């Protein structure tokens, strides 16, 4: 059974990009609530499918206006009458004329079971080129700026030739550069302190002008795309030389910065102008606004900190004390922008490279609501930034960019279910419908979300509510169904629609609890619960969130644990739940919920990525992976525990954000002694090399590039490792001292053992 479910889950994930917390669904609302972990799934709408060539026709939709579900393998088809019945609303629909030749043996792909996920290419509306609008901070150190310029110049060669590019630079002022191949370079300049409405911006950029008064001849192509042509956005192939030169001549912001001041950086206005520019020229077309910034916005709308260096940028402490005077206003500014961007179908990327904070806390909504990337680094002159940036433009096996734009995700459910919300890089489209639940989990109240930018790994958590009443049992053997319809602009500029239809069996909790337990996907559940926790953490106090998580965990254990009341030692969990508490333990310690030792920017950064990565990556984030390398055998995963830190081992830890290679004490001494250079110790050399190679492999695939840390016993950077492992040995549990294995961690945090002990105690307690 177990194996079956694991395979089933894996199979489903590979085919449909879906992982459900429960793979058997409790058949009543009441029972579902008692399951503690909600019925939910992680959906990767554009999961890369090598074996899924898109079909070149339009999907067939149910004709009921409130349903509009796509024809799918679960539908009942009457080949004789050329009718099909919608499995969501039971509406009977006529096949369109093109399906006249349909029969049992001549089925369209969408009716075949293996096409529970299918992609259509549709010809709809004008095809618009991809748009990349660079918004570049010039208040950078010289070498930083130089590195950034080079990266940008390099990126031009990576863009599709027809793509339109634009350039906005900012410092004290904001400059919108006109790109044309002739004459002197021209830019429109805006004051960095003044917020402008979209209309004003468009007026000032001359975008709203109807037509040249003298231009009498009608445009040759009346059907030419309806967008206002603009000299600010030009095809790469036409102006790459100009733009390369322009970038080459880009100077640091020339306005003097006096001692003790921060440079005046008008990020807020720059973004506002970028948004306004695209809004006026290419609404509802795939476009990326790529913001490169080297510091916090210091003036104008969206300013995060004043220009006095003696006043530091807000910390969590300030925020808790309500002492961050610009935060609310700035956040509001960026939220407004983010919503505008999202409603235009554009996205905003933020590449923030600075040693100090850059205001990601305030700006996070720009990326989070639009599906943009958020990258945080120390400097543009690091491989972390350079390679991450380069990876934005990586291509899939078809030679297409791994990015899609302007997606709309629509969720349809069968009658027993309603959709409660979604958590991920999306915004609500506020589409009410029969399948929208009144209870919200995440972004709810709608059956459609907009995801302005997504890539093959972008993953949303989607939460459902079983609404079937306890006294209205569902017929045995019937299945609940959910359909995800994702319409998006492919990077090839095609419009595509991907339809995923899944179904699961209903089960009666009373009688089939064992089955339901077995169908529990604890990994998915952990991530989905974590998303809920992180989602709450954005608006609630940290401790409240932890308490909530704890309560959920305890309830889960009470529900599914096997124990004797009041006897903690009797507590057992089945295999399907065995890892779950541990995930929760690490989640509690993770930077997603703990702000201690993290700046607000860092928290925002971590949470940003947590809310969009797929299950595997999310799990790594919750509980980093630790590999151990030794002469004793092949590399092996080991417990994320201080006991794994041994002198004769090399450890490789992957936290998603960091890759840490840690040389044990002895190894480190050997290395310092230079044994690896001696021919007779070649095996030591290989041992040293092995984790490097493995790390490289991870680095190659990961986006964003993790911070790469190479350290050894006693090294200052060992803290990256020490802060993650379970502190099973600390200065507090003295018995650990002097033992040969493991390393004590100087912390007051509780260890997993202590955590589990408490959990058991509470789970078995009848008081709760």
């Amino acid at each position, binding site marked *: 059974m177990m194996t079956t479910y694991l395979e089933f889950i894996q199979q489903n994930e590979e085919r449909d990009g879906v992982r459900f917390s429960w793979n058997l669904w409790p058949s009543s609302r009441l029972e579902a609530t008692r399951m503690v972990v909600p019925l939910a799934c992680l959906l990767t709408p554009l999961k890369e499918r090598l074996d899924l060539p898109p079909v070149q026709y339009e999907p067939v939709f149910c004709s009921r206006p409130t349903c509009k579900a796509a024809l799918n393998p679960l539908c009942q088809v009457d080949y004789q009458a050329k009718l099909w019945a919608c499995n969501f609303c039971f509406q009977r629909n006529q096949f369109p004329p093109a399906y006249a030749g349909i029969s049992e043996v001549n089925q369209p792909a969408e009716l075949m079971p293996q096409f529970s996920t299918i992609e259509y290419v549709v010809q709809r509306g004008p095809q618009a080129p991809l748009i990349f609008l660079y918004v570049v901070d010039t208040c950078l150190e010289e070498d930083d700026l130089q590195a950034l310029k080079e990266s940008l110049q390099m990126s031009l060669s990576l863009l599709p030739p027809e793509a339109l590019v634009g350039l906005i630079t900012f410092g004290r*002022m904001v*400059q919108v550069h006109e790109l044309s191949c002739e*004459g*002197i*370079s*021209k*830019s*429109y*300049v*805006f*004051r960095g302190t*003044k917020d*402008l409405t979209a209309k004003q911006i468009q*007026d*000032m*950029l*001359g975008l709203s002008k109807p037509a*040249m*008064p*003298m231009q009498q001849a009608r445009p040759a192509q009346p059907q030419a795309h309806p967008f206002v042509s603009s000299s600010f956005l030009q095809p790469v192939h036409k102006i790459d030389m100009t733009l390369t030169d322009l970038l080459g*001549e880009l*100077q640091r912001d*020339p*306005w*003097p910065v006096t001692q003790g001041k921060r440079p005046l950086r008008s990020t807020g206005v720059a973004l506002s102008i970028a948004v306004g520019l695209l809004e006026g020229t290419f609404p509802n077309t795939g476009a990326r606004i790529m913001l490169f910034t080297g510091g916090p916005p210091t003036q104008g709308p969206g300013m995060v900190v004043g220009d006095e260096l003696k006043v530091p940028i807000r910390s969590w402490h300030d925020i808790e004390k309500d002492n961050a005077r610009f935060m609310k206003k700035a956040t509001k500014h960026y939220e407004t922008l983010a919503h505008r961007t999202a409603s235009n179908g554009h996205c905003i990327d933020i590449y923030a490279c600075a040693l100090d904070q850059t205001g990601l806390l305030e700006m996070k909504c720009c990326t989070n609501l639009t599906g943009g990337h958020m990258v945080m680094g120390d400097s543009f002159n690091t491989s972390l930034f350079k390679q991450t940036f380069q990876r934005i433009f990586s291509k899939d096996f078809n030679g297409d960019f791994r990015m899609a734009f302007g997606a709309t995700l629509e969720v349809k459910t069968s009658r027993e279910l309603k959709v409660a919300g979604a958590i991920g890089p999306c915004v609500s489209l506020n589409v009410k419908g029969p399948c929208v639940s009144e209870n919200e989990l995440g972004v709810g109240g709608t059956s459609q979300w907009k995801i302005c930018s997504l890539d093959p790994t972008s993953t949303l958590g989607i939460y459902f509510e079983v609404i079937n009443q306890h006294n209205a049992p569902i017929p045995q053997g019937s299945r609940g169904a959910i359909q995800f319809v994702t319409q998006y602009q492919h990077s090839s500029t095609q419009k595509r629609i991907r339809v995923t239809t899944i179904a699961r069996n209903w089960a009666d909790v009373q009688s089939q609890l064992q089955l339901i337990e077995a169908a529990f996907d604890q990994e998915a559940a952990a991530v989905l619960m974590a998303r809920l926790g992180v989602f709450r953490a954005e608006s609630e106090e940290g401790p409240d969130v932890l308490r909530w998580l704890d309560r959920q965990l305890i309830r889960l254990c009470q529900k599914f644990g096997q124990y004797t009341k009041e006897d903690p030692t009797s507590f057992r969990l089945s295999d399907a739940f065995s890892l779950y508490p541990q995930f929760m333990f690490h989640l509690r310690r993770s930077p997603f919920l703990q702000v201690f030792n993290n700046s607000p920017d860092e928290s925002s950064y971590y949470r940003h990525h947590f809310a969009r990565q797929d299950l595997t990556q999310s799990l790594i984030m919750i509980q980093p992976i630790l590999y151990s390398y030794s002469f004793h055998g092949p590399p092996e995963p080991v417990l994320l525990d201080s006991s794994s830190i041994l002198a004769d081992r090399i450890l490789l830890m992957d936290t998603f954000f960091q890759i840490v290679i840690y040389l044990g004490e002895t190894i480190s001494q050997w290395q310092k002694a230079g044994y690896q250079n001696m021919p007779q110790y070649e095996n030591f050399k290989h041992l040293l090399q092995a984790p490097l190679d493995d790390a490289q492999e991870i680095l190659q695939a990961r986006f964003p590039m993790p911070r790469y840390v190479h350290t050894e016993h006693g090294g200052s950077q060992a803290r990256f490792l020490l802060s993650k492992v379970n502190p099973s040995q600390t200065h507090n549990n003295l018995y650990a001292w002097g033992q040969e294995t493991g390393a004590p961690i100087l912390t007051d945090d509780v260890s997993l053992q202590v955590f589990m002990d408490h959990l058991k105690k509470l789970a078995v307690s009848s008081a709760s």
Partner: protein
Amino acid sequence: MNVNQSAPPVPPFGQPQPVYPGYHQSSYGGQPGPAAPPTSYGTYNGPGPGYQQTPPLGMSRAPPSTGAPPTSTAQAPCGQAAYGQLGQGDIQNGPSSSTVPTQRLPGSQPFGSPLAPAVSQPAALQHYGPPPTSAQVTAQLAGMQISGAMAPAPPSAGLGYGPPTLLASASGSFSNSGPYGSYPQGQAPPVSQAQGHPGVQPPQRSAPPLASNFTSPTSGGPRMPSMTGSLPPGQGFGAPPMSQPNHVSSPPQALPPGTQMTGPQGPPPPMHSLQQPGYQLQQNGSFGPGRGPQPNYGTPYSGAPTFGSQPGPPQPLPPKRLDPDAIPSPIQVIEDDRNNRGSEPFVTGVRGQVPPLVTTNFLVKDQGNASPRYIRCTSYNIPCTSDMAKQAQVPLAAVIKPLAKLPPEEASPYVVDHGESGPLRCNRCKAYMCPFMQFIEGGRRFQCCFCSCVNDVPPQYFQHLDHTGRRVDAYDRPELSLGSYEFLATVDYCKNNKFPSPPAFIFMIDVSYNAIRTGLVRLLCEELKSLLDYLPREGGAEESAIHVGFVTYNKVLHFYNVKSSLAQPQMMVVSDVADMFVPLLDGFLVNVNESRAVITSLLDQIPEIFADTRETETVFAPVIQAGMEALKAAECAGKLFLFHTSLPIAEAPGKLKNRDDRKLINTDKEKTLFQPQTGVYQTLAKECVAQGCCVDLFLFPNQYVDVATLSVVPQLTGGSVYKYACFQVENDQERFLSDLRRDVQKIVGFDAVMRVRTSTGIRAVDFFGAFYMSNTTDVELAGLDANKTVTVEFKHDDRLNEESGALLQCALLYTSCAGQRRLRIHNLALNCCTQLADLYRNCETDTLINYMAKFAYRGVLNSPVKTVRDTLITQCAQILACYRKNCASPSSAGQLILPECMKLLPVYLNCVLKSDVLQPGAEVTTDDRAYVRQLVTSMDVAETNVFFYPRLLPLTKSPIESTTEPPAVRASEERLSNGDIYLLENGLNLFLWVGASVQQGVVQSLFNVPSFSQITTGLSVLPILDNPLSKKVRGLIDSLRAQRARYMKLTVVKQEDKLEMLFKNFLVEDKSLSGGESYVDFLCHMHKEIRQLLS
């Protein structure tokens, strides 16, 4: 004019006496013949005693005239007998003389030294009279006497000028009596006489005298006159020398009736006969002298008076038409002054000297007072009390041109560097060290000459005093020996306590459709490429320190980054005109040489970039704001050159409406046409001034652009406005480029503050010019060039002291074009008087007109134009009436008696009243009026002089070989001969008028066409032909242009042509189409006003 004979005043003259001497020398001598003077003196000397009596007249320059008048009677009688006789002869003299004598003595004493000094410095002598030589002394005495005698004479304010002439004139006037006789003989007079006589002949015995008179006038040139002839126009001013002929002609018949003038001629005799000799004579005198050196007047008048009396009262009607030749002629006065004072340098060592006229070429030697090029006053003798000042109504004003350009022969002010301690100043009133400061206690302290505070002399400045109390290093230190000098300012005098950066020029070019279409942008960009090599630089600097920047604009602004490291300039567009800012710092203001390639590339591309523009709307205020912000960002002062074409109607601050409405003219709302439509520009100007941002505006309008509003900022920032209506490259290129070149190249001071300090008793109360004031004392000028003038009016605070006089110190703190912070100091000492006559004798009409015009032009902003005009007329009448009442010898009320120094006041004032601003013609646009209004505001005396009374030069009258400028003729159609060609210029316009019957040869050699009819009317360039006449005329045009601050576009006007109407507008002595009175009519009008005041 003052000519008055009335003796009473005489005493006052006493003072003047000293003056006389001086005058004698220069002046009249001239008349007779340059050589003559000496002789004349001689003669005088002889007569000496006699003269003494008469001298009084002389006192006022014109004295003679006054003197003369009386003489008329006397003359005849006396004949050439000794002057004394004359003087005595006159009844008046008698009395006056009596008084005189005493006075003289005093006078002489004061001058005391006079005797000795006189010789050496004629000018100086004049006033103080100290001439050493006995001859002079005598002369003085003579003068004194004269004045005394002629008491009335003194009035001849004319003296002021006349001094030189005076003598002659005096003599002349007297000559009536005897002197003339003598002079005439010596000189050419005969002829003139002959001429004059013709008309005059009638006169009886007087005739002879008359004759003499005439001669004198002729010789003397100057006329003085006073006119009056009561009703009749008694003006008989002897017509100016020039006029003589005219007179002759006209007089013949007219005269008789007119009596007025030419007193000399016929009239006199009658007068005499009819009237009582004494008075009549006097009256005449007043008139007659008119121009001539006062003396002449005297005589003529004497004659005239008679006329006046006779004809006047009796024949009011006939007189209706005054003989234009008989009324004071500006041309004559100018000529006389030129002849009399042009040859000797004007030495400024003596307090209260009246300088030569602005129309006279003279050199200045700074010996402790500022050169008249820097400061001119309405009067160099200030009434001691405010009561007196109120009575006289003569405005006390100084026209200050702090950075005036000096001729190459004169050294520019020395720069004094006092190191870190900075310039030495009075602790209390903050006046700067100057030659008038009194060192005491062996040099350890000094007493401030302005506030009397006693200050310690800092140790490093200490110096011993010599036996006269002067510091022994006085002559080594400019600030102790010169009237004008500069101090290097210390950092305390700088904004933000930082030495200034070098200033910057920003060129801001309208690139809207109109500007492109007319070719302006292309022309300008082409010119700038070379012009940038001629930015002003200081001293021998190799390259200018000034940085430059470029902006183009229509309804948005385009800034250019022209940093030297760029391969191509970069354009930065700012569309946020509502909230203007400067988009770049580095690379906007650059060194021309370093960025030359980029700048050239930019200037090449600007016309191309906008070649296809369809944008017709422009903004204006944001452009200035942008320039100002750029300077602020660069932390420097500087200047914006704006080239603008249209009414700024684009949506932006400072947006304007077309509110031109001719219907408002002559209503109470007319003033709104001169007021800015919005307060935006004043606010903006204030910010500009605070930043030291001066704005020069070049306008190229096709239609109404609201100059009144657009010029607010240039006006308040010390900038200039140039207007080229309906600009077309072909026609206006030369004018525009020439103006542009001059404007860019001229030396400018930036971020200036001017403060005028005065000694206790008077105070600067009002200021006129292109500047901004944020308090009541500091004149703030964002920019100040050599042409900009500030007129300052003073009022009494307290009683002044005759002995200590009154002091002015004008201190100008500015940043030189190399970025050096400096203080320029001008000092001027004036006399104070307790007698009104002294005031009237030391006035300068040109300066007075400058003040009155500016006062009136400012008045139109707040009052109906009619009120302004009436105010002017009233004030003028009060001035003259006060003179008549207090200074002129008693005479018939029907007689118009003008002070010698102010005899041109009516004619000039009439010109002001008729000017476009105060009485617009039908073709004058609202913009033109506003333009002229603001131009006049910063004009200096020379500019207002020619602007209001244009110069009219006959081209073919004088021999072709003569290299000097032909003598001007009066601006009246009557003076034009249709066989001649004339040039007319007023500083802004230049006309070439061609008479209908000009010889074909002349037409050919000038225009290269065979006949008059083939001359293109409206031609603006003369063909370049290789013949003497063409060369001469073109040379003359060039030299006229060189004299003026702005390029005067030439317009060829043919007689009887349509364009002639335009030209006639400038013949200011004639009745104007817009209703302006003719000179003669106005004089009558003025006389009426005066009589009303007196009655």
